């Protein structure tokens, strides 16, 4: 694609983002439709969001979103009045000790994963085929989201029991054999599902669990490919370029497709730039704009994006009718990437734990 054509696409995407920003802010800060939390917060602001937010850049007028606001109830304070009659889900994050952070959701997880579904190649994720969800269960968004993805594509999702909080507890007390036993317990469930004749062709898995499943199948004289799986999406900062290469060259073989994703409970699902040998396994993510935006910002000024190719901390924005997050500092860092034909806005590569937190972060089995 020519530079001019890409520039035109970028300009159009930016226009759409600005319009989406105006509509989202109007929704969340109008007395008729906004949620109690933001309507209350509005009183603290020295500006009027309804009048003074006219573009995406104007979101910088808001203070950074503090995820601590999500800890504890009442959860209803996050439900927009405009959606008050809808059934509400709550998804949690953290919570190994103390009160977890909660996000209320109505249909965002469906929408996000339907949008993500549109990026999956049908030849590797055949429509109508069944799925394995090899990730956390319990009050997590992922389980229901992946299940919805499977259903949206005409399939049925098979899940395992996995309590990540228990694993983090084991890790924190240094119980390595307990962690291994729990991982084995999870993998045994997956192997059983795959062996039960459910015609599973697609999977979500975390990198660690996928690795453990593939090795377990090899021990049994089989493989991911032989089990019938054709396409996998996996996510998280452990999906590194080296791991990507290892997967394609050794763990999965050439006939199983794997694609990286990046996201969390607050935002939707950023998908990876389609595999290109020229990228040498570099993984670049693009947020599902305009519903969510990723910026790569300076470590000492969270309102300043870094130059292309430079390293910065990940800043997330979520702008749906259900949730408004005007800039949340994620616990990751990475490099700012140029827009792409398929995603004509900034991307991010090399995502990894933010260096100031990395030493204290406990990475569990997923």
């Amino acid at each position, binding site marked *: 694609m020519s530079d001019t054509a890409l520039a035109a696409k970028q300009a159009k995407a930016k226009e759409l983002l600005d319009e989406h920003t105006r509509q989202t802010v109007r929704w969340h800060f109008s007395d008729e439709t906004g949620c109690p939390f933001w309507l209350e917060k509005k009183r603290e602001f020295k500006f009027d969001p309804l009048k003074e937010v006219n573009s995406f850049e104007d979101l910088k007028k808001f203070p950074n979103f503090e995820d601590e606001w999500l800890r504890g109830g009442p959860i209803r304070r996050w439900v927009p009045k405009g959606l008050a009659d809808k059934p509400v889900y709550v998804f949690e994050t953290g919570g190994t000790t103390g009160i977890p952070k909660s996000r209320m959701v109505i249909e965002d997880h469906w929408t996000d994963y339907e949008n993500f579904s549109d990026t999956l190649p049908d030849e590797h994720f055949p429509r109508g085929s069944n799925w394995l969800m090899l990730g956390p269960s319990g009050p997590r968004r992922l389980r229901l989201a992946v299940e919805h993805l499977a259903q949206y594509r005409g399939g049925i999702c098979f899940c395992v029991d996995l309590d990540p909080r228990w694993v983090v507890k084991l890790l924190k007390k*240094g119980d390595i054999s307990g962690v291994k036993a729990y991982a084995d317990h999870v993998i045994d469930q997956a192997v059983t599902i795959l062996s039960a004749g459910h015609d599973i062709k697609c999977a979500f898995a975390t990198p660690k669990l996928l690795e453990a499943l593939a090795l377990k199948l090899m021990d049994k004289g089989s493989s991911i490919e032989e089990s019938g799986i054709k396409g996998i999406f996996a996510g998280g900062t452990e999906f590194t*370029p080296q791991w990507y290469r*290892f997967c394609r060259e050794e763990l999965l073989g050439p006939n199983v497709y794997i694609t990286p994703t990046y996201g969390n409970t607050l935002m939707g699902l950023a998908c990876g730039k389609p595999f290109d040998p020229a990228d040498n396994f570099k993984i670049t993510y693009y947020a599902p704009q305009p519903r969510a935006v990723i910026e790569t910002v300076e470590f000492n000024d969270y309102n300043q994006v870094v130059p292309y190719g430079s390293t910065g901390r990940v800043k997330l924005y979520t702008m749906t009718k259900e949730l408004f997050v005007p800039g949340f500092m994620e616990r990751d860092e990475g490099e700012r990437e140029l827009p792409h034909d398929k995603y004509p806005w900034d991307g991010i590569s090399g995502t990894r734990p933010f260096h100031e937190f990395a030493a204290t972060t406990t990475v569990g089995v997923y």
Partner: protein
Amino acid sequence: MLEIPVIRWGQPYESMEKDKIVHFETGEAVATVNNANAGLIKMDMRKQGKARDILRQFSIDQLCSMAEKAADLYQNATLPLGNGTQSPAEFCRMQSATTGLPEHMCAGNMKKNAYVLRNMRHTLEALTRGLPLEILSKGYGMESRGVMVSYQAQTNVLGMVLPSNSPGVHTLWMPVIPLQIGLVLKPGPQEPWTPYRMYEAFAQAGVPREVFCVYPGGPECGAAVLETCNRAMIFGGIPTVERYHGNPRVQAHGPGFSKILFGDDMVDDWEKYIDLMAESVFANSGRSCISCSGIWASRHTEEIAEALAKRLGPVAPLPMSDPKAPLAAFTVPGAAKAVNAQIEELVKAPGVTEVSAKYRNGDRHVAHERYDFLRPTVVHCSSTEPAIANTEYMFPFVSVVKCEQKDMLSKIGGTLVASCLTKDESWSRQLLDATNIDRLNIGEVKTIQLHWMQPHEGNIIDFLFRARAFQNCQPPSH
């Protein structure tokens, strides 16, 4: 730029993830090291049985000859390293540049490793107590005294999760290849030099490359090595040792809390042993688990502390290339500052006196932009109660502790090396029976003087092999 690959059963592998290891003084890159990932290690370890099969195509005697040859190559030859080569002098310079250990100490450790390799036959003879070595290969055999014995290898490979800060530990894994067990090495982030040089020396001496893996990388690589090797060693602090305590698959090596204990019968002659004490504290910049961190006696402790402080207190850092450089640098940002702050806090306890301060002519903590030094420190404890009476740091540090002889064994805690100056037979018997002492020296032996024919923190033969019953004919009737 020197680039060092991952080694996967002898095959170099270029990773997508590389780390630069830098000169601790200048920050200048010394080499680029390719990093493994945990899955890759787990995948490779599925083939570990092959390593032992390959090694059993040679006799242990042949492998000992190769080890002797490897000793010379390791110590004297210019060997390939990644995309370049490395002479012995370059080895010492590079090791010093990334670990902060003075070059002459690197050369000293090199000599020690070469000695163990060169004397492999004697070492194995000593560690097996004269067992005909073909019994280890074959699995069973008749001893000359007419007794059938059987030894079964408990693993095909030994995994080594190595540290960055103490190049001296490498002697522990030297006997592994001659014992026909494959080697899986996870180097410390700042010290890839010995594993790679040793690998190359073994290979050039005739050991097939296919029996070695070298996996630089993050903590997940160490965890993968520990998970997949049936026998592994790891080096770390007290939490690491506690984590693997009682795990028969993992031998965890941590702080030594090594000590010199004076018997009442010899303590009045303490002045005769001041050299022995000073060198036990000071050698290898106090970095080893065998470095003395406590001197315990029932009397004269104030004078001992004073004499040691007078000797060690004035010692100050010198450039790493100086053949007399006495101190290793702390290269991890903040580590020396934290240790110094902890000592400052602990010496405030009642009954504790820092004796070296007055001889130091400056602070203990010498800070530079990218590294630090801690200068030798001698404290006196009037009882065993203060926490600093039984501690260990990675620099020349010693607590001189007043303690009645009758109480010593119950108060010293776990002690890797105890050098005991006594001729008291009754106390010697108690020392021999004390299970909290690992290596026991009774007599004028420095804590750092190891005889490599002796087991260290457990006999590696017992770790790698299991003595078991084997019969190929009916036993005599009874």
